């Protein structure tokens, strides 16, 4: 019980520290530069309280329940030796953690709102919801694919930079054919996907894998999964924009 409380306090301080620089920078700009007070101050304060509370529960839940089991599964699969199951697990891990990523949920909703206001899709709740979930599923599939490919790369010892460069070339070529409205969202989706849930679990999988295969350097081979997970969403979302 005492340990649980300690973990919870740690999560609480962690999320406050995440928010503190933002609050400081904004306060500085409001007071010194703009010399204004925002009109809906009480609402913003309750909102920030919710953010801190939500982030605390989120991190606490992850650390208590999901990270230990996720990491132990990553190690189990890494040492099991079956390439098929390893790839399936990598794909599922990427897909599952991305679909639940709060930052992606928020940005996809915002993108749907903007698309609806610009008349790209119908301005109805239904159309916006299906646009947002289409975007999220595309991104989640791409992260799943990226992790599976990254795992394959570690097993087969492919060079990271050549795959990244091929990816860059694909992004540049596809940009030429994709509609203008999707380009910004596609480029952004690469950075959105890899945050709180994905990074620790994926890093655990990569480093676990690199240490259980002989003759690999965890530094060189363990990293790089996140790089794939930030590159492939761009390609997939550009493709999504070209098809729809």
């Amino acid at each position, binding site marked *: 019980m005492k340990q649980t409380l300690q973990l919870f306090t740690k999560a609480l301080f962690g999320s406050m520290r*995440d928010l503190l*620089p*933002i609050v400081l*920078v904004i306060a500085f*700009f409001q007071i010194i530069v*703009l010399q204004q007070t*925002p009109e809906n101050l009480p*609402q*913003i304060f*309750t*909102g*920030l309280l*919710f*953010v801190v*509370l*939500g*982030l*605390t*529960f989120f991190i*606490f*839940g992850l650390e208590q*329940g*999901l990270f*230990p089991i996720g990491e132990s599964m990553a190690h189990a*699969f890494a040492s099991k030796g079956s390439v098929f199951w390893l790839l399936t697990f990598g794909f*599922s*891990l990427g897909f*599952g953690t991305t*679909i*639940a990523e*709060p*930052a992606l*949920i*928020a*940005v996809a909703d915002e993108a749907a709102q*903007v*698309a609806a206001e*610009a008349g790209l899709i119908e301005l109805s709740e239904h159309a916006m919801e299906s646009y947002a979930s289409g975007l999220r599923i595309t991104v989640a599939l791409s992260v799943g694919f990226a992790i599976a490919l990254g795992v394959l790369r570690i097993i087969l010892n492919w060079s*990271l*930079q050549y795959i990244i*460069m091929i990816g860059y070339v694909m992004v*540049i070529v596809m*940009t030429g054919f994709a509609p203008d409205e999707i*380009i*910004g969202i596609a*480029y*952004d989706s*690469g*950075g*959105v996907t*890899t*945050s*709180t849930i994905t*990074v620790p679990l994926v890093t655990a999988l990569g480093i676990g894998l690199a240490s259980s295969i002989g003759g690999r350097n965890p*530094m060189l081979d*363990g990293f*790089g999964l*996140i*790089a794939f997970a*930030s590159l492939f969403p761009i390609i997939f979302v550009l493709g999504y924009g070209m098809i729809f």
Partner: protein
Amino acid sequence: MQFLDELFSLLLATSFDILPIAVIIFGFQFLVIRKRIRNLKKVLTGMLYVLIGITFFLLGLEQALFPIGRSMAEQLTNPEFLQTVRLTTGELHWQDYYWVYIFAFAIGAGTTIAEPALIAVAMKANEVSAGAIGVWGLRIAVAIGVAFGLALGSYRIVEGIPMHYFIIVGYVIVVIQTFFSPKLIVPLAYDSGGVTTSTVTVPLVAALGLGLAETVPGRSALIDGFGLIAFASLCPIISVMAYAQLSELKDARTLKKQLNEDYYVNRAGNKPKK
């Protein structure tokens, strides 16, 4: 009452969002690994906390982070405010929006320097490179990368330049740097782009970009509003590799100096300094 309604429907929607994780964990555990889960109760309560956490986070996002990002963009591009701080006369030029760039820079630097994921990665890199890559050096390199990326990205929105020009130039720089960087740093640099943009920063920055595109005359939210996050993920790759190259250069120079000294000491007939 309306608040409770909203909370409930959000809770329901979030349950569907975390359902895949539950399916994956239990599916693999029962079908493939075939072992009983240790601390099953802890895993289940952990999931419940995650569910509550995401719900409250999204609620707070809607009430605080999104409005703050938008209103900062609106206030900093407000014509009345710009009149008091502008640098040029006549029509508004991109220089007149300098407070926007400073704000973007400050948000980028402030949120990145304290990012826990980055601190962990920096310590690991320091250990593996035998001290050649400093913990603080790497953190500052990433923070400058993110801050510069956000400032450049807001300049792009203000000017309305198509973003793929910047991205393509960025990719070319990354590819060239890859060939000249110390091999150990390359995967780390590629990863640092994705690691830095945290769950709190992303929504705020997205709102800032959309707000800018809505208030700067002649910009459209759909075409110009996105892209800040992409800049914030690309620039750290460049700055981290640049930092590694600089520290390697510095190391090489001290080594060369050392060798030269040894050489002269030798010529003078003394024993070489170890």
